[in-house]
């Protein structure tokens, strides 16, 4: 990133303002189209219940944050949305995960097809050990989106606000990019196959503050075209980027711990007047 410190401060102020505005407008317009509907979702790993009794709706073109203490099943929840948990031994899901009113865990649904529409960005930037261009072009080429591939790559990189920084070195290894650039490359890679939803699993946890600011700014820009769900351990980040926030916590019963959804509301409500004491305690930093 080439942002100098004063600009950065201004940038942050602006994005903080944006949060307020964005949060308000989301509430005002009340983006009502439901992308995901979770009905009584329980996730087990073997015998152990990881997350239980989840009911929530995720709305179109809204940034939804999932926050909560470690081990409360935030990432598990996120990964059920694109069936990335399938490969984990002992994974079992009951209840319904409806994506545009279709249950994605039905027997005749191909998880590959699900992931094709629902992009994901991981904790640690994970560019492939290929050139910058190939990182983006690889998936579209395989998926048969070969027409105007160069234009597609450029659009994806522009979409991820990375084009100007890398346009002169597309042939170079992606591993030479900085952490923040790598993470935006991973977002670009996801955008290149034109997903409907973008899932972000603590996308900034391995990034420095400046790179974090660049990714958060990008999320704001992507809000127009994509539905985004972000897991974050950083409450300030949720407050900055999310329109709606879900607070997960740990439920200890008979010595076994499982994640529960405590409260789910607009980010403003969660952070200023939470309805549940546990949320209030967490937000105030009294535990977790």
């Amino acid at each position, binding site marked *: 990133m080439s942002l100098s410190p004063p600009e950065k401060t201004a940038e942050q102020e602006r994005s903080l303002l944006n949060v307020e505005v964005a949060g308000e407008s989301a509430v005002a317009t009340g983006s009502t189209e439901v992308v995901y509907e979770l009905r009584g979702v329980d996730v087990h790993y073997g015998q152990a219940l990881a997350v239980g009794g989840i009911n929530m709706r995720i709305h179109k073109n809204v940034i939804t944050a999932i926050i909560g203490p470690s081990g409360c099943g935030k990432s598990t929840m996120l990964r059920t949305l694109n069936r990335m948990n399938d490969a984990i031994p002992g994974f079992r899901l009951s209840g319904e995960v409806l994506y545009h009113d279709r249950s994605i865990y039905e027997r005749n649904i191909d998880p590959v097809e699900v992931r*094709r529409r629902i992009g994901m960005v991981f904790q*640690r930037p994970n560019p492939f050990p290929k050139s910058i261009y190939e990182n983006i072009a690889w998936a579209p080429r395989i998926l048969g989106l070969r027409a105007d591939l160069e234009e597609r790559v450029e659009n994806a990189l522009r979409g991820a606000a990375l084009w100007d920084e890398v346009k002169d070195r597309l042939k170079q290894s992606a591993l030479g990019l900085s952490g923040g650039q790598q993470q935006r490359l991973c977002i670009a890679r996801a955008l290149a196959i034109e997903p409907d939803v973008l899932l972000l699993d603590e996308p900034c946890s391995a990034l420095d503050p400046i790179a974090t600011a660049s990714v958060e700014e990008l999320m704001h820009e992507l809000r127009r075209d994509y539905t985004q769900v972000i897991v974050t351990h950083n409450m300030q980040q949720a407050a900055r980027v999310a329109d709606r926030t879900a607070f997960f916590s740990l439920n200890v019963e008979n010595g076994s711990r499982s994640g529960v959804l405590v409260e789910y509301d607009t980010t403003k409500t969660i952070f200023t007047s939470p309805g549940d004491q546990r949320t209030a305690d967490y937000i105030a930093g009294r535990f977790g």
Partner: protein
Amino acid sequence: MSIQGTASSTSLSPTGRAGGRFGDRLLTVLTSGAALATIAVLVLLVEQVVNGSSLSISAFGLGFLWHSTWNPTLSAGAVNANVYGAAVLIYGTVVTSVIALVIAVPLGVAIAVYLAVLAHGRVGAVIGPLVELLAAVPSVILGLWGIIVLAPFLRTTIEPALHAALGWIPIFGAPNPTGLGVFTAGVVLAIMVLPIIAAVCRDLFLTVPQDLKDGALALGMTRWEMIRGVVLDSSRAGIGAATILGLSRALGEAIAVTQVIGTGSTITASLFQNGDTLASRIAEQFIGTVSRLQTASLFYCALVLLVMELIANLAAQLITRRFQKRRGLAL
């Protein structure tokens, strides 16, 4: 210093633990001695091979490499009596090794992909050690199995099929009635190098970060697309190194090859005919040599083999080094 040390604990006394310094010195001497002994053995070995072959080198020179006569007869009237050339053997060594790799590399990579990426828990835990156990089968036993089971099987099924389908290519001639030959030797070698290639590639594929595999799957890739684009693509150099490791094993194998190659003395186009390799010829004839020149020629064969192995080994090291450099960048 926040800790108040006593005089004895802060003074640098020359006598620490009894014999501590002596022990360290001994350790250095012993270990460096062991390392130097390796080099000494190698030097002596090369010297012995060169010395042993000097008679043959002065008699035949480099022509030894491309002359195919190998005639230990001493009777005065015979044509080319006591004349030696290694062309047949070099050809046999290269061809059997190539056959071995053509079979073992795809198979070994496939096994490794299964074990490292696809197999779940218990299946992998059973098959993995079994594959490595294959490497523990003594080559003489594999050779016996080659004579009794493999040769008749190849003669009656695989060789006729290849001859029928691809007979217009000279290398797939009519099957040898004994079932022995270059092709059979290549298949036996393939079985021998398979576990090496599979084990090395498996370890290699296990080092491909889960992050990358997840990244590919999250893009809507199938498992095969993920394997091809991420696992195999990022392991290309390592697969190359594993291949050369297998090659060096195949080049030098003597006993099993002797048992199944049929000891031919000419270069034939068909893979199904008898042939011989450098290592195999040395094993066959060293005990019963009839002249000093024959012994020297066998040493010359050993020298050629040594050089071939050396080149393979250097190539493997070169590839691995390049590979590690790329890895270093990745981490």
